[in-house]
């Protein structure tokens, strides 16, 4: 026992990382070769025969990106209560998906979201607007993912970020181009297993260390393991106020803004094309409902653990560094200092680290991402756990990137080429076009990963606002409001997306003014992240008003609406 333990520690973080990352990559490539797509149906929707559980796992992996895995717990640990906007926002959308969208879109039985918009609103213009929205949303989102891949590589394997991005590109290229949706689905099943294991193991270890409770969800509401009888959250509230921060369990955003951001994220989730399209892959309507439930269950395992990790990490951080001698800081502090993710400037030259809310006195700046990436080291966990986190982060980033690339390639080859430019293209030709557009999409994504435009990080969160402002109302009205016509839907989508883009450009990027305008100038006190809610309401309003003044949709379209409301007979889903 002692010998094997010694061997395990002698292997070192670096070698463990090579082993685990190498093994998982070999697994993904193996799956890709085994699940090659041979028809457009397999390429776009995995043949439409994926089991609800496999689809649930794939959806969960597709959904949980590098941001969920690496950044979210860190963001929560600095935001406290306010972090709930991400937790509720990124899970509550699945209720909307399961109850309002997934079953009907599955019954409709086409390949893409623009397919639905184009057919339901009997218009090429509507299809084009939808293609534009799908590409805009997916590209803003995917650029951030490729960057995430690069960052994980560079931190754990000590290659530079660009090399990391290129390695990631090659892997995704291989299985997305070869396997299409089919390959992506089954690699995502494997990636879900890797990422959830990698997230839970350190969380459970740390929960036991700090509170003696092996379940992190309960641990962060328990008493400390030191026998003092103090609750962990009370202690963190105390530490936070002592250092001048807001009480951890209270937060500092306005209620209005918390409400708006949560709603924008929920509705945005339900309107994201790469999430919606996953429900086209199951066999029956009832499978689509069940699959949405399973996906959320699997997501919630990570999402309920993240706030616990946030509390553990924040408490650990304060206790390890606050008012300690800089000369005596632990090794991980020095290591992460080199990456620039943690910086210390001794403003008052007392050799101690002052970590306080007051900006003039604070000497420590900590990047959000550290909370998950360095957490195992801060808690002194074994090397293999640290390496596991690297493999998990890569699984999260790669699975999401692949799902997005598929949406991009199908928007081009199916929606644009097959449905608009050249309807006579053969099945074989379309499959080639799909593969070529996947290659092109990977190259563009890689380019943005290597040369990230300064605003990528800022706009990734806003992809949700764009989805909320465009697709969600158009799809909901298309299913639940038979009278909705093309004029209303097109006007709604155009107004919604323009309003969102303008607000984002004004208040996030500051292009209309000399600088990014102050919070006080936000409309109704709502941040750009929460504005998707307003833009969505605007879309609904414009759609309905315009519809009142324009002719009702043709009878055959109204018949389609009747048809998608009935669950049976989804089996014959196809291209025509």
């Amino acid at each position, binding site marked *: 026992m002692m010998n094997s333990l010694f061997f395990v520690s002698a292997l070192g973080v670096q070698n463990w990382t090579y082993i685990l990352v190498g093994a998982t990559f070999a697994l993904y490539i193996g799956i890709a070769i085994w699940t090659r797509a041979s028809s457009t149906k397999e390429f776009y929707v995995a043949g439409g025969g994926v089991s609800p559980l496999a689809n649930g796992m794939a959806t969960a992996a597709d959904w949980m990106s590098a941001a969920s895995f690496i950044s979210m717990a860190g963001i929560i640990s600095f935001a406290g209560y306010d972090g709930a906007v991400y937790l509720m926002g990124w899970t509550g959308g699945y209720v909307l998906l399961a109850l309002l969208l997934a079953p009907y879109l599955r019954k409709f039985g086409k390949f893409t979201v623009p397919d639905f918009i184009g057919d339901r609103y009997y218009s090429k213009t509507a299809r084009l607007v939808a293609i534009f929205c799908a590409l805009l949303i997916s590209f803003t989102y995917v650029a951030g993912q490729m960057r995430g891949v690069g960052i994980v590589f560079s931190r754990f394997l000590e290659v530079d970020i660009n090399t990391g991005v290129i390695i990631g590109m090659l892997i995704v290229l291989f299985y997305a181009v070869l396997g299409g949706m089919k390959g992506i689905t089954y690699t995502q099943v494997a990636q879900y297993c890797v990422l959830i294991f990698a997230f839970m193991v350190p969380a459970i270890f740390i929960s036991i260390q700090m509170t003696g409770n092996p379940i992190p969800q309960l641990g962060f509401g328990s008493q400390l393991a030191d026998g003092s009888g103090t609750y962990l959250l009370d202690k963190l509230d105390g530490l936070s106020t002592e250092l001048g921060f807001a009480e951890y369990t209270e937060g500092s955003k306005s209620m209005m803004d918390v409400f708006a951001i949560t709603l924008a994220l929920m509705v945005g989730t339900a309107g994201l094309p790469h999430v919606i399209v996953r429900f086209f892959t199951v066999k029956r309507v009832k499978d689509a409902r069940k699959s949405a439930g399973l996906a*959320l269950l699997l997501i919630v395992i990570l999402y309920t653990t993240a706030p616990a990790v946030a509390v553990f990490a924040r408490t650990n951080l304060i206790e390890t560094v606050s008012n300690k001698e800089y000369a005596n800081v632990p090794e991980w502090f020095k290591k992460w200092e080199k990456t620039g993710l943690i910086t210390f400037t001794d403003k008052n030259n007392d050799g101690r680290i002052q970590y306080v809310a007051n900006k003039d006195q604070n000497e420590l700046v900590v990047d959000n991402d550290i909370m998950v990436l360095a957490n195992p080291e801060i808690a002194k966990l074994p090397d293999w756990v640290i390496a596991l986190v690297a493999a998990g982060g890569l699984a999260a980033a790669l699975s999401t990137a692949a799902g997005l690339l598929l949406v991009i390639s199908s928007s081009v080859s199916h929606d644009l080429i097959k449905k608009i430019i050249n309807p006579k293209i053969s099945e074989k030709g379309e499959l080639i076009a799909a593969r070529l557009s996947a290659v092109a999409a990977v190259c563009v994504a890689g380019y943005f990963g290597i040369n990230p435009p300064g605003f990528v990080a800022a706009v990734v969160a806003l992809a949700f606002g764009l989805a909320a402002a465009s697709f969600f109302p158009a799809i909901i009205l298309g299913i639940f409001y038979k009278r909705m016509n093309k004029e209303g839907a097109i006007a709604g989508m155009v107004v919604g997306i323009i309003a969102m883009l303008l607000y984002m450009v004004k208040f996030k990027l500051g292009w209309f003014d000399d600088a990014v305008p102050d919070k006080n100038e936000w409309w109704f006190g709502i941040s750009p992240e929460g504005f998707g809610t307003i833009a969505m309401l605007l879309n609904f309003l414009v759609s309905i008003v315009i519809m009142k003044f324009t002719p009702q949709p043709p009878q055959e379209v109204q018949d389609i609406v009747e048809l998608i409301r009935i*669950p049976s007979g989804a089996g014959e889903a196809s291209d025509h």
Partner: protein
Amino acid sequence: MTKNNAKAYWKENIKYVLILLFIWFLVSYGAGILFKDTLNGIKVGGFKLGFWFAQQGAMYVFVVLIFVYVRLMNKLDKKYGYDE
């Protein structure tokens, strides 16, 4: 499967959806945001209740809601002969 059958099915479906979405709203926007401060006066273990709903409880309820919907709809499909 007549037109009336489809209409009745749709009506029941809408009723379920509205009830479930009401609960969805209540646990997240209600307990987690609007009434958070009042609920925070109640403590369960180390958790203030409003905080717990916002960072834990709402998510558990979301999962339960979907599975309840799955069961209700499977029954409804059978009742109206739309089961597969």
